[in-house]
């Protein structure tokens, strides 16, 4: 019965290594730093989930203690939480540095967001300056 856990763990490790291979393939193949980051991070996260939880199941199947599986779940949850954060910070650094997009990329949502934000800020400053001048006029009228 406990042999089944070992087989499931090995199958998970094989799937995880396959996704590792896909992530490095995307890292080599993709034309742009943004595309590379997306493909490699997503599939590496999924592959590490498979490998680490598969190791926990395999250890239980080999007859080790059950705390292996809790420890591996902790490591997997940590990687699942931190890997997208590091990818996001990296790609934001790349965008701030001004690395251009690939010529075939059509959508740049972050630039649209920045433009919209700048427009809103301009409208706010204009409204504030108008209100400020009006307030000064009101104050002047009160003084006179």
């Amino acid at each position: 019965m406990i042999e089944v856990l070992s087989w499931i763990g090995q199958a998970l490790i094989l799937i995880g290594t396959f996704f590792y291979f896909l992530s490095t393939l995307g890292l080599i193949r993709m034309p742009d730093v943004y595309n590379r980051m997306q493909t490699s991070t997503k599939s590496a996260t999924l592959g590490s989930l498979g490998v680490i939880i598969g190791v926990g199941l395999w250890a239980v199947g080999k007859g080790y203690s059950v705390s292996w599986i809790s420890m591996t779940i902790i490591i997997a949850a940590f990687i699942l939480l931190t890997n997208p954060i590091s990818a996001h910070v990296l790609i934001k650094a790349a965008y701030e540095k001004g690395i251009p997009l690939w010529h075939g990329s059509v959508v740049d949502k972050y630039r649209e967001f920045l433009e919209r934000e700048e427009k809103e800020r301009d409208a706010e400053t204009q409204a504030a300056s108008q209100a400020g001048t009006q307030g000064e006029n009101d104050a002047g009228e009160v003084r006179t």
Partner: protein
Amino acid sequence: MTPMYVYLLLIGIAVVLSMYRVFRGPTAVDRLVAVDIMTTLTVGMMVLYALYYGRMIYLSVALVYAVLAFAGVIAFARYLEGGI
């Protein structure tokens, strides 16, 4: 039971393939992306080694390595951004 070094060999091939982008990448962020992926692969290899030697204490090494790699990648990204 399949020998363990098959999986270690597969992950090692993936590490060598991502080394290509470290040497070849046009910008610094490309290299940092490749190093980030290599740390993720290294955590997987460390967990497999822990099962190979049958010691649970080695899993803690993998966890600490994951924490330190995350902090290092964040620090390097802030440096490239011009924050530090």
